[in-house]
């Protein structure tokens, strides 16, 4: 009996320590963002919103944000469209080498990004293409598509194949069936995929760093500012905003995924193999 209690205590301690290790550094970000000193150290010297004000007037930052949004929206849209096709195909049809092909598509999930970045850089240069935001989009599509397929795959797997057959049987065409039945039913998955891929692209650094030309994305900009100690507090402020935004987007994505699960009568609390 006491043995069991001991074991439970150890597990609790382990869990708490783990969570602190995981999230304490993240909590430091907003703390120092509102600290009036330029030196990032305890004790805190006072409350200020000055650093957020600095962000407001930094033009280079604004263009970095614009670049990042352009890249993230493009990458999210392209990878979600590609994911939609792939997920539908995998869920409905079986084709030769299905597992092998899917494995190759999903590979970037586990491949070190630095390898992808270097490999893409070499290929692009060999092809004689100049680096720009579009080459970053290309790289981001590569790493975002697997996530999109994972999210949409679960949406399609939950879709009863007789739904599409019923529509077809009732006189609807294949395109009409997609428009009136399939798409509305996987729509929450599509939105969830857009949000997740948008988030991934928005804060991706390595590929963006290697593949961009003169235009920098937000993470690359942040990295470049880290060299100047005076800029550090405003980077903290920027990080705080990004943190809030990312968490909000992921929560939104999860809400959509759960809504789609509820709509199909599944248990919404399961992650269906995702996350």
């Amino acid at each position, binding site marked *: 009996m006491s043995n069991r209690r001991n074991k439970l205590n150890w597990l609790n301690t382990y869990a708490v320590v783990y969570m602190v290790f995981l999230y304490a550094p993240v909590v430091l970000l907003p703390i120092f963002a509102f600290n009036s000193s330029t030196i990032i150290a305890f004790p805190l010297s006072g409350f200020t919103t000055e650093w957020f004000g600095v962000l407001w007037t930094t033009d280079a930052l604004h263009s970095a944000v614009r670049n990042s949004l352009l890249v993230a929206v493009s990458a999210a849209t392209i990878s979600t469209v590609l994911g939609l096709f792939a997920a539908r195909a995998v869920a409905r049809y079986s084709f030769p080498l299905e597992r092998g092909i899917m494995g190759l598509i999903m590979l970037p999930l586990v491949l070190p990004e630095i390898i992808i970045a270097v490999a893409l850089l070499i290929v692009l240069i060999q092809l004689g293409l100049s680096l720009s935001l579009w080459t970053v989009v290309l790289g981001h599509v590569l790493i975002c598509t697997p996530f999109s397929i994972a999210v949409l795959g679960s949406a399609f797997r939950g879709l*009863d194949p*007789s*739904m599409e*057959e*019923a*529509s*077809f*049987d*009732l*006189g*609807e*065409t294949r395109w*009409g069936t997609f428009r*009136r*039945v399939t798409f*509305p*039913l996987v729509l929450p998955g599509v939105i969830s995929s857009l949000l997740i891929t948008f988030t991934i692209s928005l804060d991706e650094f390595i590929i963006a760093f290697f593949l961009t030309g003169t235009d920098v994305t937000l993470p690359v900009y942040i990295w470049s500012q880290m060299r100047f100690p005076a800029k550090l507090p405003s980077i903290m402020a920027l990080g705080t905003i990004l943190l809030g935004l990312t968490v909000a987007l992921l929560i939104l994505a999860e809400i959509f995924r759960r809504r789609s699960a509820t*709509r*199909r*009568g599944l248990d919404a609390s399961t992650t269906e193999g995702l996350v």
Partner: protein
Amino acid sequence: MRDTENPQARTIIALNAVTKSFGAVQALKGITANIREGEFFSLLGPSGCGKTTLLRMIAGFDEPTTGTIAIDGKPMAGIAANHRPTNMVFQSYAIFPHLSVADNVGYGLKKRRLPKAEYRREVEQALEMVDLGGYGPRAAHTLSGGQRQRVALARALIMKPKVVLLDEPLSALDKKLRDQMQLELRQLQRSVGITFILVTHDQEEALIMSDRIAVMFDGQIEQLATPEDLYRRPVNQRVASFIGVMNFLGAQVSGSDENQVSLDVQALGRIDIPRAGLPEGMKPEDIHRVGVRPEMMTILIDSATTAERIIEGEVVETSYYGDMTYYAVRLIGLEEPVTISMRNTAGRAVLRPGEIARVGFATDSIILFR
């Protein structure tokens, strides 16, 4: 006699030597049958017998490997499901969860671009037909299983198809609701007069609902007949044991002349069968077994009651069902116990295992098998 029992009724679906192969597996091995206009037709068989495959080919979701399917005289080769005069009620019902009940029912009508008022009237009529009047504005995912089934039915009927296809439509419902829906479906079919083709593995369901039943095993139709014919005159042991319960007893021909055949039957003794009583195409020397239905044997309660033949046996097991009692009785001279069913009429005692029962039966109730 009803129209549909008339063999002269018009053929609505003609299946001619239909086969279907999936790779090396032959799921259907040559199905030939004519389904008559306005009848309630069932495809009955164990899972994997090919009945659903056949239904899906009639619907147009699959094409036969060889053979032809004609609906209302028109060959269906190359015509996809959305252009066939058939509508399907799916096993899962496939109710569109993102639409209201009315939008589900009117889904197929939308393509026909009716005036708004007419569209609404049609949808409401279809809902009333399945007892769901006023349910139109509800969200489809709030419906119960039985209601989903009705919506699926209304959604098919509103298209005014020549044939409604039902793929195990009652299997997801609980027993009570299923019994009720069986009768309702039957009544609905009679009132609309549309041909219904039902796929089921439940023999009781098929017997209750159908005008005719095709019993399928291993991709072939073993027997196509009315429920009564199937039960009383099954063509072989497989059909006989799939439809209801059948006791099989070994039999040998001990003699025959032009008028009758004499059989020596296990436990039952010598039984004379008139020649005319032999099924078509069966010769006396073909007979190797006989079958007796549980209700064709009686357990005689007191020594005063009598029967054409009486044999003794020991009750091995008693299963009490309320209205009926099923006995497993080991007859003298027989290893395997036979099943005997008795109606629990007033004052009739239920025998316990171990008791000796006097079993009476009439010799004309036996069924001959090869």
